């Protein structure tokens, strides 16, 4: 029992037959071949699978691909343009906002959401915004610095 879905991912339209029970994260990684969004906990706690769905950051382990029929999805692979990193990616690089890098795709997609809604967040707002993303390496300080730097870069 499969159904056809049409989704736009990073500007490219895809059409696939999917089982209703296929989670978006499995669809992105195994069907479309985009392995940037990571599977960390698979229980909607860690945020490593975060992608943007119609402009909103969501956890792709907790939504079925079939719910996204007709939707626009942005993954970490769609952030850099013309061979140039996105300002948020630059900021994570410059501020050492990662160590092992496993959580980074999710951190960056959530950072985009935070800055889309608030161009100049306080440290407290940044930490509240990153509530749903876990990093087991950095202790978060450098990630908060990176978000702040990205906000500055976007304002500049």
């Amino acid at each position, binding site marked *: 029992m499969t159904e056809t879905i049409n989704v736009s991912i990073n500007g490219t339209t895809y059409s696939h037959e999917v089982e209703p029970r296929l989670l978006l994260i499995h669809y992105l990684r195994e069907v479309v071949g985009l392995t940037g969004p990571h599977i960390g906990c698979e229980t909607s706690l860690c945020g490593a699978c975060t992608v943007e769905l119609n402009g909103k950051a969501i956890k792709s382990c907790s939504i079925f691909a079939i719910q996204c029929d007709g939707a626009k999805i942005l993954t970490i692979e769609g952030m850099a343009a013309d061979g140039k990193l996105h300002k948020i990616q630059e900021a994570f690089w410059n501020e050492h906002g990662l160590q092992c890098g496993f959580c980074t795709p999710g951190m960056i997609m*959530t950072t985009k959401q935070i800055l889309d809604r608030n161009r100049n967040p306080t440290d407290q707002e940044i930490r509240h915004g990153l509530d749903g993303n876990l990093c087991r390496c950095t202790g978060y300080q450098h990630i908060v610095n990176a978000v702040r730097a990205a906000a500055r870069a976007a304002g500049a």
Partner: protein
Amino acid sequence: MIPQQFEYSAPKTLDEALGLLAEGAKPLAGGMSLIPMMKLRLASPEHLVDLGRIKDLNYIREEGGAIHIGATATHQDVLSSPLLRGKCPLLAETAAHIGDVQVRNMGTIGGSVAHADPSADYPAALQALEAKIVLKGAKSERTVSAEDFFVDTFTTALEPGEIVREVIVPIDGDGTGTNYQKVLQPASGFAIVGVAVRVRKQGEKVTLARIGVTGLSNRAFRAKEAEKALEGRSGSPAEIQAVAALVGQGIDANSDLHASAEYRLHLTAVYAAKALATALGRIA
């Protein structure tokens, strides 16, 4: 973490959805509780009806002196709604405490209240607001109070085939102050204890006090003894302490690895006092 197979429908109208639900299908709203449960196979519905494509279920509007919130309004919609922030700030404030950014972007008010997690945030606010919940089935529609809606752990007044269609909250009159205080379980984000307060004053006297509590016991409830003890008083610091001590009185408190029953009751008094003081301080 792969759910059992199921059939999926995404109707565009509520009537179509209710027809499928009457045949035994289960509703899917934001999925922030249901999908994790399906992945763990704690829930294995055979047929899911996605309510997400029904346009006239997602609204927040003023109507007849109250604010009506459609079932599929997300927590993000609620916390950022200018209407709610201006006229019923307690609900917007409470929504900001739910889960995290990603969960608030997907999770819905209808789904959350229908799930009736005993540690969820909305139920405390809805009790304090004396909210009404509109339940709709294929051939029926009825309105129940929040007090009657939350029956027990994961159990509500919903009958098979019914969905939460909307939640109705009052508009705060002049002289009203509200606040929600929560001790959260840091891994899950759910409330170990949450207290929502709505108070109104006329001159120096508290004329109305409503206190909703979540996380403490099997269901969210109103602390009516404490409410009565505050009404008619001025709301002095000493009175706040005395009233806060009544909030958990006589309640069969939950006990788990995060907090013993005794500790939960202690937290309830401490956070009730904070919520009462903040709400009273916010009265313009």
